């Protein structure tokens, strides 16, 4: 027990100084276990390859240029879809949040269309647009749109009425209250919406790429499935996970921290 404890205390000390390793070290035992299970031959090798083979296939796919290309395709689709979804969603959310009548009219409709879910649209989209980029973009925009609208509306409605009235009675115009009171007040919620939207949009993208299947990480995985190459499927999953980690750590978390600290009306 003693050496284990020492190791742990070393880890605690080092990770206190370099917080970055805290999100890396926990994966080491998992990879070791994975390698051990793969080596033990409990499952057929073709069904359950080891980490080394995945690293090797990563090398090959990067060398051939397939992985960077597909990755770029997926990221561009997601980025374009998300941007469009936000551009549509935030104004609509503000409208629904501000106007009582719009709220009564649109809220049930929004909830219903959110409930249908992006992926259920795929069959009819395929009839409309075929197996094309439009189909995929539509799916992502649709997915991102609803969480953003619903959360923006919630955020706008959660801004205390006194703040709104105070700004008005201090002489701010309607447009200015929207811009300087409502939007900042709703920002933490908008961020939550963006986070949920991206989480769903991400999955929708993978599903769309599997079903529409022209390029992208989802296609890479499903193509590998067709060829029976588990290595590439695992590689795809790892790339997806890492990518989300990066988006989360480098894009979402900083914005959230900034908005939360600056305008944090809502406690997370």
């Amino acid at each position: 027990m003693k050496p284990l404890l020492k190791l742990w205390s070393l880890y605690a000390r080092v990770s206190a100084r370099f917080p970055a390793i805290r999100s890396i070290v926990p994966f080491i035992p998992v990879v070791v276990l994975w390698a051990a299970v793969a080596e033990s031959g409990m499952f057929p090798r073709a069904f359950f390859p080891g980490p080394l083979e995945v690293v090797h296939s990563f090398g090959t796919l990067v060398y051939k240029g397939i992985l960077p290309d597909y990755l770029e395709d997926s990221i561009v689709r997601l980025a374009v879809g998300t941007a469009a979804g936000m551009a549509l969603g935030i104004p609509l959310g503000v409208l629904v949040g501000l106007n009582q009548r719009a709220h009564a009219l649109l809220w049930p409709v929004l909830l219903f269309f959110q409930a249908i879910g992006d992926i259920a649209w795929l069959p009819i989209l395929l009839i409309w647009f075929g197996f094309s980029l439009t189909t995929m973009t539509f799916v992502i925009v649709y997915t991102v749109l609803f969480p953003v609208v619903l959360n923006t509306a919630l955020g706008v409605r959660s801004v205390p009425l006194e703040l709104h009235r105070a700004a008005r009675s201090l002489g701010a115009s309607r447009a200015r209250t929207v811009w300087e009171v409502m939007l900042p007040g709703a920002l933490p919620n908008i961020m939550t919406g963006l986070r949920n939207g991206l989480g769903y949009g991400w999955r929708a993208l993978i599903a769309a790429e599997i079903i529409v299947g022209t390029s992208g990480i989802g296609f890479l995985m499903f193509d590998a499935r067709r060829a029976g190459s588990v290595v590439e499927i695992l590689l795809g999953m790892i790339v997806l996970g890492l990518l989300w980690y990066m988006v989360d750590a480098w894009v979402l978390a900083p914005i959230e921290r900034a908005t939360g600290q600056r305008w944090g009306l809502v406690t997370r």
Partner: protein
Amino acid sequence: MLRFPRLWAALKFVAPLALLLVLWEVLIRAFGVGSRVFPDVASVARAGLESLQDGSLLSHTGASLGRVAVGTLLAIVISIPLGVAMGVSPAVSSFLTPLFRFFSVLAGIAWIPIATLWFGYGFGAITFVIFNAVFFVVTYNTLLGVASIPLPLRHAAASLGAGKWRMLTEVLLPGALPNIVTGIRTGMGFAWRGLIAAEMIATNVGLGYMLFLARDFYRTEVIVFGMVVIGTLWLLLDRLLLAPLERATIERWGMVRRA
């Protein structure tokens, strides 16, 4: 008019949807949209009636709901004890948090290719996708929930003589419950989408399959009917089961403020 407030609220909820229905019909007629592009209301209703009569709707819906129920229950039964066990020690939970974050990001659809390879097309693969969509999200949230219980509360309970069992049932579980329920709701949201996607890819029965099959024959009325069924089912599940559950636990045990 306010004698039946719940009925009134329901009516207010349904009215805009009814309006949408009218709008739909009007637009179809006004622009003369062909049935290959978008069906009119009557033919969707007819498709619905047909599928109800020949029992296909029932069997597809039953298959889908059965998969969701099996996968979700299995996941919940395993993940809550696991999450609590891991969350009890702060060191263990902080060590494992990144791992579970990684896997809860992957949860659901990303597992479809490998699930179909491991389990073949059919019940096993789809239930597996649902299982792990719920499993990782719920475990992660339980872990967070237990870890977020203030230590002084646990110390207080311990020094007042609470045994391990009472600590579990009266401090840890109630404290983590709001998080657990939120986790279940999120996880089921992912699972439901994962289900539809998986059914399009990997089976021969279920709502997703019904939609995708109709696509092959350009039967838009069946597709739209299926979409309405999917939307309604999820709305019922979410609004009548999950959201009230979440609200109730947060009100009763909510140490976490609603975001």
